[in-house]
């Protein structure tokens, strides 16, 4: 949409006639007519007055809609990526803290109640080095969490650069 069309649309939206708008802006009715028909363009000082009168930005008046849209899309993309990074970091923190906590609990159980730790290992169908798969899951959770955290932080640093 060009400036002439935008001026026409804004005027119609406010329900003003060319005469009324001309009076409000302090210009002649012919000038409004010329702007709306695209025969001439308002001066920069008048553009500022128009933007203030209709409560729109100068960008909106001067730039075409196509040049404004990608910026909006980009900011949306950045917001989505940031929220994704945040959720990744959160998941990473939860995974690594959970894995570490399970390791600590398992360690304490194996010292304080050796029988219980043995039963925990025996209940597992897969055994590694005589211990159940529980320890393996703890380590996998910690590593996955750390990788998620490091990746999201790297992405953030890349965005800042």
């Amino acid at each position, binding site marked *: 949409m060009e400036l002439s069309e935008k001026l026409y649309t804004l005027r119609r939206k406010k329900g003003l006639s060319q005469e009324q708008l001309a009076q409000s802006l302090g210009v002649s009715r012919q000038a409004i007519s010329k702007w709306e028909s695209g025969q001439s363009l308002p001066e920069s000082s008048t553009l500022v007055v128009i933007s203030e009168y209709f409560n729109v930005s100068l960008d909106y008046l001067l730039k075409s809609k196509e040049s404004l849209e990608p910026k909006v899309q980009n900011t949306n993309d950045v917001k989505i990526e940031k929220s994704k990074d945040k959720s990744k970091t959160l998941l*990473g*923190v939860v995974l*690594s*803290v959970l*894995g*570490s*906590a399970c*390791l*600590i609990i398992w*360690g*304490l159980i*194996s*010292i304080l109640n*050796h029988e219980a730790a043995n039963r925990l290992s025996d209940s597992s169908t897969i055994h590694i*080095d005589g*211990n159940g798969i529980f*320890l*393996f899951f*703890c*380590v996998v959770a*910690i*590593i996955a*969490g*750390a990788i998620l*955290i*490091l990746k999201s*932080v790297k992405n*953030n640093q890349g965005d800042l650069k």
Partner: protein
Amino acid sequence: MKKLSIAFTILSVLLSDIMCAVVAYNYRDMLCGIKHSGYSAPAGTALLLAIPFIIGIIACISCGIVFYKKAEKK
């Protein structure tokens, strides 16, 4: 971020403490088993239990460092 880095540092310290306790307990258990119950494996196999803890400690320390650096930048 600083709180997270502190939390991960505390976790790594806790993991190292528990690792020492678990390895020592199992090493002693293995020694007793070899002496009295006829265990065939050497007592050193108890050190294998340190592997998951070491991985956890390394991961926690690296996460702690990352969060600390991020907090300092902010």
